[in-house]
């Protein structure tokens, strides 16, 4: 009986790239696991932190209808965070679930982008942030729906419909405030100015993102940029606004280097579960 051919290094490389869910007898690949965990934290934390931020509007929005709109977006985002963080805990395999990851980590362990932790400011600033984020998240989720990890693809495919609505609603408000009264226009201009410098971080490809991309988990975000810029340009043109001048980009959220705003947000968010651990209701 002929013996099996030896396993060559290039065969190993192919084996490592196979899909973990589905591949028969796939080796437990630590690098794959930690990359997937990291990217799930980014996705989950983006949604969690922006959901918490928008929740701060509850009871304070300009009208009861806007109050509901903002709360709806917040709840959509918290729902996404629950899915992503639960899956992150499962992938990590150390017994942490979504709640543990959300409520028992400290600031330095959060992997959200800096854009979502920015303060609400006024309604215009909130809508500027929403447009910049949702337009990116929409294009990312479109691509993630084809992720090599079926679970990530399923969450993204479900969430992308929610996000399409967020993007549209935010766009409508940017248009109305920009092309509105002198005051609403000034506020929207300030809001966009505040948020603009956090765009480059959304398109940063660091080592983790490159790894995830090589494994088919993550899209090449460079390819999202054209559509993103075009979308913003369309909205700004209709809002009769100029795009803010390019500013010095601020990066670091994905490595846990956050602005001072995040600590305050997390303190409020985690107060209850930390004061009454394992409380149920």
């Amino acid at each position, binding site marked *: 009986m002929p013996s099996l051919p030896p396993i060559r290094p290039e065969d190993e490389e192919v084996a490592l790239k196979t899909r973990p869910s589905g591949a028969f007898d796939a080796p437990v690949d630590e690098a794959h696991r930690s990359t997937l965990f990291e990217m799930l934290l980014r996705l989950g934390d983006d949604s969690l932190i922006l959901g918490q931020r928008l929740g701060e509007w509850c009871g304070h929005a300009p009208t009861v*209808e*806007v109050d*509901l*709109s903002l709360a709806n977006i917040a709840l959509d985002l918290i729902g996404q965070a629950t899915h992503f963080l639960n899956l992150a805990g499962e992938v990590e395999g150390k017994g942490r679930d979504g709640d543990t990851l959300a409520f028992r980590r400290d600031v330095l362990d959060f992997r959200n982008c800096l854009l979502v932790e920015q303060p609400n400011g006024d309604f215009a600033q909130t809508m500027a942030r929403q447009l910049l984020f949702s337009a990116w998240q929409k294009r990312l989720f479109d691509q993630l729906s084809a992720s090599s990890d079926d679970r990530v693809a399923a969450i993204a495919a479900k969430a992308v419909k929610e996000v399409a609505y967020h993007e549209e*609603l935010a766009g409508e408000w940017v248009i*109305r405030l920009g092309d509105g009264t002198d005051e609403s226009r000034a506020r929207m201009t300030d809001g966009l100015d505040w948020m603009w410098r956090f765009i480059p971080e959304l398109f940063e490809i660091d080592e983790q993102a490159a790894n995830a991309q090589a494994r088919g988990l993550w899209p090449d975000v460079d390819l999202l940029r054209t559509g993103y810029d075009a979308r913003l340009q369309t909205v700004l043109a209709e809002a009769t606004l100029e795009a803010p001048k390019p500013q010095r980009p601020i990066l670091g959220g994905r490595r846990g280097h956050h602005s001072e705003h995040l600590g305050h947000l997390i303190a409020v968010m985690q107060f209850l579960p930390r004061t009454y651990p394992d409380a149920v209701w």
Partner: protein
Amino acid sequence: MSKDWPLWEVFVRSKGGMAHRHVGSVHGPDAEIALRHARDTYTRRMEGVSLWVVPSAQIIASDPRDDAQMFDPAEDKIYRHPTFYNIPDDVTHI
């Protein structure tokens, strides 16, 4: 000019084949935003598959002072109910 946004009446179709039903009203600066407010206010629990918003100011309502002449005369005309038709069991929403 009032500082409040105009009022819009909201109509929801709960499923295909059913008529839109009036469910309430929302404020909104224009039709597009009013439609989104209606979506966020009245269909967040899967209540509908289609939405209409209509400017409340465009609704022509009967005058309550005319109630007597408008509605009372119908009170004793029970022969206007087509009660002698048999409706098949599997025909719903009639």
